[in-house]
């Protein structure tokens, strides 16, 4: 027997000995996940529309090129382009996920139901009502769906509701100790980040917005709000770490790679994320150096270039990425330029927002005004971004928690 034959025979025997087939212990896990995963509709597969000869060509066989089939594919492609163009043209325009947009409806929860109100006309509507106890609505960035928390005997489920179709898209399994601050829609609308407890730890879950499937991220998430990084949106900024190594990190949800953004200023210090500029280049966060002195940092995560604004905390970045509304050392509202300089006080001394709540303040999508959860008087308040006018219009009286972005 020559050498190659022996090698092949030995390889066959060694492979068989090295991995005897055995039924693995994770079969039930596979079936659990797939039972909760929605199948792609049949029409969405291109090969379903093509003749078998064309499919065979796409498989890159070494057969001669069939020009007639290629011609048929070209005709089909033109028809598909025409159909897609017609379909896209007939669809309502959607706003960009980041940057300026027009202002749509304002969502809020009241008495366990979810409402929307039009800030222009004051028209109010209960979009989700019934016996369920629902709270904390959050508009998707394209303004088509609302996610909210629904109480159940075991905890709270995250529900995705399609506002145009007036139907629940999906409901997750119950989550324990959900942090409403952490609910964050991904820019493409396919996922929602949410922090909850599992196995005695805080866990950052990625929810499939279509199927409700929950995927825990393998990161040491601790608490607080999280922010998807513009413009692509597959990276999340979060507060996490273990022991002395806590800080702000960025995780790529596609490949799990974690990158450190910043640490607290020192022992006893504190750090909290405030968001991103819409170009995704700069991370905005606040630090307390342990002596009670606050600063807000605007850091270019590529170059490390940094702008520091002293005595300003709990900032919220405007949609155009040029300003932030924050609280100054006196606890007063102020607006600062992200390029640096003083934070200019706006509103009255009695007006401030709940800084430790991620939904404490919202810029309207057109940056014309700011919605605050009034820290001193309760309820919500609208204040012009230049600080000239602050009021509590009738539409805001029952609550205001999330603002819909619509196409300009």
């Amino acid at each position, binding site marked *: 027997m020559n*050498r*190659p034959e022996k*090698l*092949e025979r*030995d*390889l*066959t*025997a*060694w*492979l*068989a*000995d*090295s*991995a*005897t*087939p*055995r*039924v*693995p212990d*994770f*079969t039930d*896990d*596979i*079936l659990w*996940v*797939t*039972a909760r*995963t*929605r*199948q*792609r*509709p*049949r029409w*969405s*597969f291109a*090969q*379903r529309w093509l003749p*078998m000869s064309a*499919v065979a060509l796409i*498989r*890159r*066989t*070494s057969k001669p090129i069939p020009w007639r089939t290629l011609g048929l594919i070209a005709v089909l492609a033109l028809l598909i382009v025409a159909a897609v163009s017609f379909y896209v043209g007939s669809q309502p325009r959607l706003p960009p996920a980041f940057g300026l947009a027009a202002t749509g409806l304002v969502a809020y929860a009241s008495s366990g139901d979810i409402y929307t109100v039009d800030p222009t006309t004051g028209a109010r509507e209960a979009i989700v009502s019934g016996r369920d106890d629902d709270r904390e609505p959050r508009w998707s960035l394209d303004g088509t769906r609302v996610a909210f928390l629904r109480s159940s005997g075991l905890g709270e489920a995250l529900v995705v509701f399609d506002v145009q179709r007036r139907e629940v898209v999906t409901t997750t399994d119950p989550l324990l100790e959900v942090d409403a601050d952490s609910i964050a829609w991904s820019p493409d609308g396919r996922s929602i980040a949410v922090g909850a407890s599992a196995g005695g730890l805080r866990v950052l879950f990625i929810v499939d917005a279509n199927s409700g499937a929950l995927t825990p991220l393998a990161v040491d998430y601790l608490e607080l709000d999280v922010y998807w990084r513009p413009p692509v949106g597959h990276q999340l900024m979060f507060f996490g770490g273990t022991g002395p190594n806590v800080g702000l990190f960025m995780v790529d949800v596609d*490949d*799990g*790679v974690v990158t450190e953004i910043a640490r607290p200023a020192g022992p006893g210090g504190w750090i909290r994320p405030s968001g991103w500029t819409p170009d995704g280049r700069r991370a905005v966060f606040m630090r307390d150096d342990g002596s009670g002195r606050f600063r807000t940092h605007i850091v270019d995560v590529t170059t490390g270039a940094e702008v520091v604004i002293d005595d300003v905390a709990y900032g919220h970045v405007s949609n155009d990425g040029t300003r932030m509304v924050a609280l100054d050392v006196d606890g007063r509202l102020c607006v600062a330029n992200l390029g640096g300089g003083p934070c200019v006080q706006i509103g009255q001394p009695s007006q401030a927002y709940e800084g430790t709540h991620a939904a404490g303040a919202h810029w309207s999508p057109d940056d014309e005004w700011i919605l605050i959860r009034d820290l001193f008087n309760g309820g919500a308040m609208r204040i012009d971004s230049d600080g000239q006018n602050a009021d509590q219009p009738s539409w805001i009286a029952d609550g205001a928690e999330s603002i819909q972005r619509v196409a300009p």
Partner: protein
Amino acid sequence: MDQRELVERAGNGDHDAFALLVDVSVARLEAVARLILRDQELARDAVQDAYIRAWRDLPGLRDPERFDAWLHRLTVNACLDAVRRRKRRPIEVDLSPVMPATISDQTGNIADRDQLERGFRRLHAEQRAVLVLHYYVGMSASAVAESLDIPVGTAQSRLNRALTELRAAIAADERQPAEPRAVTA
């Protein structure tokens, strides 16, 4: 119920039919993934990814007779994805053998086994995949081509190339008897 009918029913959303398909194939696919990846945890993730993708995309499978080849392709692709992801971040290396040798070992002496093990680990994952499909699953070159979605000629040349490199790796190993055991796949 034959496999063709199960595939058709699963493609129409029948999850019980899909569960039967999983039952009859999961042991083989898990072994294939273990051999390609040489890491049990990665193999587990790859097999899970493959089945999730299979369930999601089954409505697009036009010819139910191709289900086995298609499932192998999904598994191999999931393994290659796992290798690419692993290259981008540090991992804990499992030094234990994928499966301990059994007393029914028919592959010759321990030195031959170790040489094969080391040589096999030195191959690229794509090369390990074609060898596993051909010499472990028992696929012909044309079946390997169908499973990997490549022309038959390419599959044949990959098989030959992988064998050549395996042979070269074993020869190099024989020249360095004191070389430490490789610890990465």
